[in-house]
């Protein structure tokens, strides 16, 4: 038996229509929770006045600095039961896999301590437990923590990460997302739980260049699967595909759409690939899933610096490691070391509230790479500089370095 519902004529209009209605869900919760009665009241008020009424504050759990998003109502006098409406961020497993038992347990805990409203998932990949009083934050967290789940990131810290379904269910996958995701993130739990960086830092793991995790755009460090050798071709399946769809379809949709024109459909319905010019874009493999697959010599490309709009404009990550293997323990340690190295450099050189990408834009990629001791590579560029505004007096030393590397490689 809860307090009387506020009239919500506007929200009510969002109960109709074919898409599942969050309003209906909120109302169902309101049947047993005063907090949700007033939450609905405040939300309706926002709809009418077209203004938000939450403000920040502080709420956290013992031992951690972040992970809770505190919300206090600016109109608590009118909606006292939802005066506090904090969110806990909990990190799911890589790929967001669940058995129903786990989800049911989430529900039970959150019904006990919170509003009963759960977002699956936030844009950074957290389970978002939305709507908690300050007092219940600790017990709620403890219960999830006992289940084997840990707090996600918030504030100027390493953030919760995301990895695609990858190895678990995708034939395009070029490395083990679960292992990479956990190896990296679980080496940064301290930086994740105790915000002390210039700003947020996000990792994302897409296991091929389709980048289902939007990692280039939305993460400070994107780890993307790729391969070095030739695309694997099953010519029989190519033939079947051509039979099924016709040569014209294959030419218009596969051959002609290759960005570097390295595909040729031969007269005998086999496919030739100029792998030297293939830029591993995935398109042909995407279209002919049975006939083509990534090569056998797989690994990752690492890009750094993606973020959204404020304050210098949107940034995409750019290549800092064209290719590295990700098989052996040593490989995974190298990946973690790289991440550590990048975060340390940024922590030292980044200004307050300056993302890693903004710092790179300010100091230049060259200096960033030099600072990290990473080898430069023309694959990191669309093209070399078009302006002479650079001081080149130690050209010869730099040229020598390249020649030595080239010799070493050769």
């Amino acid at each position, binding site marked *: 038996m809860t307090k009387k519902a506020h009239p919500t004529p506007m*929200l009510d*209009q969002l109960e109709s229509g074919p898409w*599942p209605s969050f309003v209906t869900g909120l109302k169902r919760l309101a049947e047993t929770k005063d907090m949700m009665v007033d939450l609905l009241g405040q939300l309706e008020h926002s709809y009418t006045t*077209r203004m*938000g009424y939450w403000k920040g504050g502080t709420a956290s759990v*013992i031992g951690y600095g972040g992970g809770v998003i505190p919300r206090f109502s600016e109109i608590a006098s009118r909606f006292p039961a939802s005066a506090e409406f904090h969110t806990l961020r909990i990190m799911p*497993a890589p790929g967001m896999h669940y058995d129903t038992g786990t989800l049911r347990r989430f529900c039970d805990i959150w019904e006990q301590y919170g509003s009963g409203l759960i977002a*699956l998932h936030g844009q950074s990949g957290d389970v978002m437990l939305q709507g908690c009083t300050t007092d219940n934050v600790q017990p709620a967290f403890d219960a999830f923590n006992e289940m084997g789940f840990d707090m996600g990131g918030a504030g100027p810290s390493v953030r919760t990460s995301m990895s695609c379904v990858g190895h*678990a269910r*995708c034939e395009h996958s070029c490395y083990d997302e679960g292992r990479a995701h956990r190896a990296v993130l679980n080496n940064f739990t301290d930086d994740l739980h105790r915000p002390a960086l210039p700003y947020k830092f996000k990792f994302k793991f897409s296991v091929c260049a389709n980048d289902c995790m939007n990692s280039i755009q939305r993460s400070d460090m994107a780890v993307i699967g790729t391969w070095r050798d030739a695309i694997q071709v099953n010519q029989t399946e190519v033939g079947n595909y051509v039979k099924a769809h016709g040569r014209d379809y294959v030419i218009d949709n596969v051959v002609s759409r290759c960005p570097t024109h390295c595909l040729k459909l031969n007269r005998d319905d086999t496919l030739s690939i100029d792998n030297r010019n293939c830029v591993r874009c995935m398109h042909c493999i995407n279209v002919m899933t049975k006939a083509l697959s990534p090569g056998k010599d797989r690994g990752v490309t690492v890009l750094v610096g993606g973020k959204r709009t404020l304050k210098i404009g949107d940034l995409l990550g750019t290549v800092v490691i064209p290719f590295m293997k990700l098989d052996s323990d040593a490989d995974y340690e190298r990946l973690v070391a790289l991440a550590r190295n990048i975060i340390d450099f940024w922590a030292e050189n980044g200004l307050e509230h300056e993302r890693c990408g903004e710092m790179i834009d300010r100091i230049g990629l060259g200096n960033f790479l030099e600072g990290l001791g990473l080898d430069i590579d023309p694959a990191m560029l669309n093209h070399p500089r078009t302006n002479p505004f650079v001081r080149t007096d130690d050209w010869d030393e730099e040229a020598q370095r390249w020649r030595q590397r080239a010799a070493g490689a050769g």
Partner: protein
Amino acid sequence: MSNTPRMPIESGVPDHFQYMHPTLRRNYGRWAWHDRPRPGILHHVAESGDEVWTVRAGTQRQMDVHTIRKLCDIADEFGEGYVRFTIRSNIEFMVSSPDKAERLVGKLEAEGFPVGGTGNSVSMISHTQGWLHCDIPGTDASGVVKALMDELHDDYIREDMPNRVRLTTSCCQINCGGQGDIAINIQHTKPPKINHDLVANVCERPSVVARCPVAAIRPAMVNGRPSLEVDEKKCICCGACFPPCPPMQINDPEHSKIAIWVGGKNSNARSKPSFHKLVAAGIPNNPPRWPEAAAVVKNILKVYKQDARDWERMGEWVERIGWPRFFELTGLPFTKFHIDNWRGARHSLNASTHIRF
């Protein structure tokens, strides 16, 4: 009951195998190929010959426990007790046979969960917080998403777009929703109204000043108390000053409008990733159903569907036909606001005679 506080077990990201469908676990890293028997169903075949059918359904993302339990009931009764969620808050049920998948589809639809979001569909919109929870929103997120997905339901359950379409929303210019084929974002149109009485108490003035992209903010004394001043000629109404200083009221029921962006792309397939571009602004922020924004989105989708070729993403299609044609076909007005004047704007100008007539 001891009084020593419980310290967290800093376990980090949990192992995913413990929650993973057995077939997925068994064939981890050994999948051979996939196809899509029908919209909403993925069929993956492993090197071992094992097969798995995945049924994808839409959710409201902000779910009450009852909805989640209902999904669990469905998973237990019609599925195999294992699910996963996608980056777009769709739920996926993994099962071992096509007819199980079919039955799942029936049940999900019966329970009001649309099945689709696969292949060349319009998938669920990436969704942020808005009035429900955020402290700085110019609009709602859940409501915008619900209103739009109601309109786009048919495009979600079908796969008849030229390529996948990925929509995003953002309830402020911070853009938590990210880049999309079509992005529906708040665009403030007036400088912040400053509540001078509060600035002194709540704002760290230097850091607020530092947030402004165009250095339009300067410290000032206003009726005897330290406050801030905005050069309204310079101000680009981005709202960056608001999070660190809530008295810089950027949100406005009238002047916080909606802008629509087109051509964001994250994948590296064919073309490199690209940012979305402004196509329409000044759209009223009109709850509960934002009909004006929905109309613009549907119109763009209609034209894209008619004019684009197979596999062309929204931005790739516009690249091919050219922006003048885009404005012509959609009937959207072209204004001086479309012309970039931010740093590096010159890269967006046509420095050639390549023009379609």
